[in-house]
């Protein structure tokens, strides 16, 4: 174990060598049936530091933190908090030990006010009035101290995701948490919200709180942590000072081999126009106009990336192209007009026209979680003569094909009888991508291809997208991850408020320019005009 003193950050108070670690885990092991989720894990988290835990999905990070928060009981091992051995059996004892947790999926009551959420479970007496008054006072103080501003009387469901996360942090602080665990906190945040979160975390560290940050984003680890521990396949592979490591080294430690952080790709060689969108307008169920006249072209052999903060119409664009929503305007694929409202405006007709669709939310739209892998792979192929045997479906052929696709796309474990929910996020996504790419489409719509997916799988999926491009297919990529947009796109279109703000050449733009466009600021400088020549 590497010691954690003198992290080399001048602005930090040097941790006192004589102080006991805020958290010390010794020899933690936990198995679920035959799967060893945590194997003999030891870690020391020093007080007043931000300690990152990084690892691929399924590496055992969340299990470890769930043990620390009392959700699971470890099979073996000991937990020390501030030097004292603790027996953490449930959330209650974890809270009593000064541990607070901010879950990836917030544990908030949507129709309660912020105040009610904060006091829930930490009320002072049988009546609410005094607790609410006390919490209101405390929240005002916390807001001032840590930039945690939230209106205490706002109803949670009306708050933005970033504000909801602040409520979660406030909940922990209201319970006197000295040690704060955050599980993938930036997964749902806009870049600006993430920056604000990091400021809050720095303020907390300054006040002597200890923070454990679980993430799979290397950039965050490099940006904010003092120390980082790497997990791989249930084991702690290393703990290093952040200032003494590099993203490349961490990535290698995570996956156990060298990882290319940038996708290797040659220049695009665009051919004929495959997709032509003109004046596309879409209203949602509530009558709100979500797409306000979209014009787009994608040519064969190129990737058009759509950047933007989630909720600016990207989802609706994918849905209308994929036949899951009707719209107005004109969409042509290979020169032929698509039906946008009538009988042929469904997903099946779109597939017949050579469009494949990897939806943004794989668990809700891409897969049926309780179905076997081979049944999931069968979606969209039900009427394929290849799988017909008289009146019946040829399930054996389907299963054989699934097995072949799983091998080709490196789905692990390669067992077509497992239900979709028993695969990790990355492998679920590979199943969907395999199904859609193997359709050999002219146009692939792909939304958030690597959301909640581990680094190894990200790399693989990116390679597949580029390989498809190099076969001369058109690809529409929607992602909220700017890194991903930059890595894959041949042209980048930025969406804001249902409109395309502009199209840029990735080589001639930068995050700052795109960030401004994503915020709706249309300052099209000279270089911007020039870069949109393809659009």
């Amino acid at each position, binding site marked *: 174990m590497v010691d954690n003193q003198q992290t080399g950050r001048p602005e930090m108070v040097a941790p006192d060598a004589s102080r006991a670690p805020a958290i010390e885990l010794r020899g933690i092991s936990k198995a679920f049936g035959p799967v060893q989720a945590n194997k003999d894990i030891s870690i020391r988290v020093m007080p007043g530091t931000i300690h990152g835990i990084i690892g691929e999905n399924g590496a055992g990070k969340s299990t470890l933190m769930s043990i620390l928060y009392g959700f699971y009981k470890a099979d073996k091992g000991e937990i020390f908090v501030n030097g004292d051995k603790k027996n953490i059996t449930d959330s209650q004892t974890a809270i009593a030990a000064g541990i607070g947790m901010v879950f990836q999926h917030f*544990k908030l009551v949507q129709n309660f006010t912020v105040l009610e959420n904060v006091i829930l479970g930490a009320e002072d007496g049988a009546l609410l009035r005094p607790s609410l008054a006390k919490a209101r006072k405390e929240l005002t103080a916390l807001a001032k101290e840590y930039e945690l501003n939230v209106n205490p009387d706002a109803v949670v469901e009306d708050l933005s995701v970033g504000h909801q996360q602040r409520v979660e942090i406030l909940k922990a602080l209201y319970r006197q948490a000295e040690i704060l665990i955050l599980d993938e906190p930036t997964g749902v945040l806009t870049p600006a919200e993430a920056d604000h979160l990091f400021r809050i975390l720095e303020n907390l560290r300054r006040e002597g709180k200890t923070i454990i940050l679980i993430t799979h984003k290397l950039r965050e680890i490099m940006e904010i942590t003092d120390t980082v521990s790497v997990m791989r396949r249930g084991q702690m592979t290393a703990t290093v000072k952040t200032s003494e490591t590099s993203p490349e080294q961490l990535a290698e430690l995570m996956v156990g081999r060298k990882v290319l952080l940038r996708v290797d790709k040659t220049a695009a060689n665009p051919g004929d126009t495959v997709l032509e969108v003109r004046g596309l307008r879409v209203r949602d169920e509530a009558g709100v106009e979500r797409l306000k006249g979209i014009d787009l072209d994608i040519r064969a052999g190129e990737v058009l990336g759509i950047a933007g903060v989630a909720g600016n119409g990207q989802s609706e664009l994918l849905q209308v192209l994929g036949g899951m929503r009707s719209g107005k305007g004109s969409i042509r694929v290979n020169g032929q007009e698509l039906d946008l409202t009538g009988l042929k405006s469904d997903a099946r007709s779109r597939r017949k026209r050579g469009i494949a669709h990897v939806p943004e939310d794989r668990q809700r739209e891409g897969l049926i979680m309780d179905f076997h892998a081979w049944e999931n792979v069968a979606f969209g192929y039900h009427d394929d003569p290849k799988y017909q045997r008289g009146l019946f479906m040829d399930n054996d052929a389907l299963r054989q094909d699934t097995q072949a696709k799983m091998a080709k796309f490196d789905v692990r474990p390669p067992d077509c009888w497992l239900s979709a929910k028993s695969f990790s996020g990355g492998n679920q996504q590979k199943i969907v991508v395999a199904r859609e790419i193997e359709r050999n489409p002219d146009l692939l719509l792909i939304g958030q291809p690597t959301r909640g997916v581990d680094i190894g799988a990200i790399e693989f999926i990116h390679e597949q997208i580029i390989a498809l491009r190099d076969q001369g297919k058109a690809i529409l990529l929607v992602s909220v991850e700017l890194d991903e947009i930059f890595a894959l796109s041949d042209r980048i279109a930025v969406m804001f408020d249902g409109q395309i703000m502009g199209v840029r050449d990735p080589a001639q733009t930068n995050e700052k320019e795109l960030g401004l466009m994503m915020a709706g600021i249309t300052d099209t400088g000279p270089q911007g005009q020039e870069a949109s020549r393809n659009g």
Partner: protein
Amino acid sequence: MDFLTIIQILDSTVRLATPLLLACLAGLYSERAGVFDIGLEGKMLAAAFMSAAVAYVSGSVWLGLLAGVGASLALSVIHGLASITFRGNQLISAVAINFLAAGLTVLIAQSWFQQGGRTPSLIGGARFEPITLPFADSLAGVPFIGPIYSDLISGHSALVYIALAMVPLTWWILYRTRFGLRLRAVGENPAAVDTAGVSVTGLRYAAVAICGVLCGLAGAYLATGLQAGFVKDMTAGRGYIALAALIFAKWRPWYALGATLLFGLLQAVALRYQNIDLGGVVIPVQFMDALPYILTVIILAGFVGKAIPPRAGGEPYVKER
């Protein structure tokens, strides 16, 4: 229609609304905690039978009430075990309870009293007597106010007043106490309650138990207040009407009072006038009986505001990572 008739219909409304209100509030506690309960009917029925049987044998309506509440609670515990502890399907468990109650009450009644599945008629102390409020008799002569006070407000049995008092009490518990906050939270997002270190199971059992007690009161009122003894299937769908009222009331206590009074009024009118002649158009009594359900469908279809049930309702809580 003269003034006295109106008073009589309203008086009958209050009496008919009482079991609906108690059952509706019972469902409110359970469903607000995330346990759907279409077994109100069965619990009321079991309580009606046990209260009538024990009241008849002991001669004391209060012992009967206790037995009725006990029977209803026992069924609640079964529902709790099935849907909370064993995470079964709440609808199926409740339907089973309805069938169980419908069959068992008649069977036991026949074996105990040999009167064709009914209990003997209750008399004297085995029934809830009307309570005459102070000055009811002396004010009876005063025009207008007199009949309202002495006939409409005074002269109901204790359970009617208890039911009415439950409305503000329930509101206060739900919105002003720690228990109420947690109860509402566990019906909306049990994970939030769990991570806050509060037992989801404990809260849901508490809610289901309260539901059992209130259903017990409702059933006991049917057999020992509204009528004098138990007869087969005497709840006659009141448990379902109470559920309809609960949706109509959007799971809120004061609205529940309004909804059950409205449904009570419909029943009172249907009871008094078989077919209503509206200048040539005859409204059959069946239509009045169906009206609560029709109104509920209209509410559910979203015509009169939106009725959003508790978000975690109907789903057993399974701890995720």
